């Protein structure tokens, strides 16, 4: 039934005449609707279900039943009830309006102007936004400072070519790399793979010509030339950055094998099998007269088809 809003103190009329007035209104806390009215009649308070109400008027309600039937309804047990102000039933006061009128308070004269209110509201929003604004740029730069740090183009000695005994065989070079990490001076164990390539393998590696390496501005830092038979591969698999190994494969013979997702590369770094998106990354390499190998520890973004240098 659509919510009925009988007012307290309304007169109650039955089919055959007035019987009394509404003393209380009872609401159902679950449906948030009026369930009963309490009619004060003949010195008693009767709990009358709301279905009995035929019409609700400004100051009276009309019931469908007779006066004698009202007397048959149960008496109110006040101790079984609380007022709505004594409990917190959400939204009850929104849905049920049964008081006789509202409590009034004076409206300040200055607040009557809508233009004033709107102007100052707008002004507050403007100034509020503008207080934060000067900080936006400095804070962004502050947070982003280390995010696009310039590349480390230092030459690092990783070992000697005398360690390489056979052609076209991957030899791991483990070395310590020291670097500044914010204010700390740290050292990390790193590894790369060097092969002494045969001319056929070299041809495969240099099929697109000499390999050049750039810095952030696009200026060349180094160029690897095909005349140098030594090739260094970065020790991180271009798939997702795991460390790979040189292993003997059942079918493919001696290959670079990554244990994480089983990418397989030949001695030229070409992808033979597995999810690797591109061949092994070649590093800038310098071999001194005494056979000392130096490389630049270039790092590329894993998982991408093209080489995107990140460090």
């Amino acid at each position, binding site marked *: 039934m659509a919510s009925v809003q009988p007012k307290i103190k309304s007169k109650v009329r039955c089919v055959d005449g007035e019987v009394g007035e509404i003393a209380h209104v009872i609401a159902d806390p679950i449906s948030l609707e009026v369930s009963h009215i309490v009619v004060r009649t003949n010195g008693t308070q009767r709990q009358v279900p709301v279905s009995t109400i035929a019409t609700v008027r400004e100051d009276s309600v009309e019931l469908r039943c007779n006066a004698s039937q009202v007397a048959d309804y149960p008496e109110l047990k006040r101790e079984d009830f609380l007022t709505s102000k004594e409990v917190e039933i959400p939204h009850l006061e929104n849905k049920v309006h049964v008081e006789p009128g509202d409590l009034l308070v004076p409206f*300040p004269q200055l607040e009557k102007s809508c233009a004033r209110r709107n102007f100052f509201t707008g002004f507050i929003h403007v100034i509020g936004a503008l207080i934060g604004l000067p900080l936006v740029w400095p804070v962004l730069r502050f947070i982003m400072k280390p995010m696009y740090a310039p590349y480390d183009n230092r030459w690092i000695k990783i070992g000697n070519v005398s360690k390489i005994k056979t052609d076209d065989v991957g030899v791991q070079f483990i070395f310590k790399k020291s670097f500044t990490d914010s204010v700390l001076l740290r050292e990390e164990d790193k590894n790369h793979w060097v092969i002494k390539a045969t001319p056929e393998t070299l041809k495969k590696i240099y099929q697109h010509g000499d390999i050049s390496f750039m810095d952030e501005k696009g200026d060349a830092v180094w160029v690897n030339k095909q005349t140098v038979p030594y090739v260094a591969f970065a020790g991180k698999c271009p798939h997702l950055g795991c460390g790979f190994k040189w292993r003997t494969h059942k079918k493919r013979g001696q290959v670079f094998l990554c244990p994480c997702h089983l990418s397989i590369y030949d001695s030229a770094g070409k992808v033979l099998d597995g999810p690797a998106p591109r061949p092994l990354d070649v590093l800038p390499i310098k071999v001194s007269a005494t056979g000392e190998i130096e490389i630049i520890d270039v790092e590329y973004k894993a998982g991408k088809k093209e080489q995107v240098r990140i460090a």
Partner: protein
Amino acid sequence: MMFLLQKVYDFVDERIDLKTLEAKMMKEPIKGGSRWAYVFGSVLLFIFIMQAVTGVLLMFYYIPSADHAYASTQFIIHEVDYGWFILSYHFWGSSAMVVMVFAHMSQVFLWGAYKSPREMIWLVGLALFGIVMAFGFTGYLLPWDQRAYWATTVGVEIMDKTPVVGDFMARFLKGGPTPGQMTLSRFFVIHVMVLPGALMGLAGLHLFLFRSAGPAGPFRGTSEELKAKTDFFFPRQVWKDIVAMAAVFLTISSLALIEPVVLLEEAKPDPGDYHPEPEWYFLFLFQILRWKVFGGEFGQFLGATAIPAAFMLLLAALPFIDRSPERNIFKRPIALLSWAVVMIGILVLTVSAIINREFLD
């Protein structure tokens, strides 16, 4: 755009009764109208938020270890883009907070807004005052330069002299018998976690109690005058609050540019040429302890513990001692005089401490 906003508003209103909430929060009529004198509480909230924001940013690069605290602070100043500005804003913001706390307490005191029924607001406010001072004290150590290290060491040593609990308190703060890594770790966690939590909780309570009691309003004016100027908290008082916040923001930024943070050398166990000194808002206490009358063990107890504690207790007891309902400061000569004496006293002692620097060699 406005139509969309209205739709969003109605959606939320249906569910949480936003209209009533808005009415309760915003449409609070202020007797005698919104006043610039009432802005200091909101300004304090603003400064706290700015300190939290800049503080969190500093934590992106600061390392709270005795080995790296100094280097990481220097890193922020010299290496990180605008790091010097963020750090200097944080530094001057803390001074601004102390100044505003004094301004806010003075305004409440002079307007008699601590009197019944606002006693609890005043007491919670005193606790907040203590928290602000603790913020300043704990934050000061973090750069770990000579100034930071020695100001803290001297300060904790003074606390050590408190009877009964002094030794325990000092060892708790130092994390041992002597200052070191434990001290830094404790001061760091107190500064970035414990105190912010305490401040937010107590500030919430402070605001709730304030709203329950309602603003005290002006201390003079006929009822006609008060009624004529009455307006709602929103928008006029909020507007005044926000203009004051903007002015404070500009002032702190300017100070950060005029005098950016420059560290001394890294902390070491020997003060060398450096003369230990606390932050400027503790200088008056620092100076008073130089007086002969506060020399010796009893004298130090008097000057460092007894008198400050007695003063704070007096402030706490104030709403219960001062029962007169009179709020007009010009009709409360004792109150006006005591306030003036305390403020001038603090000023004179602070300036004395600055002059005293020349006499230390």
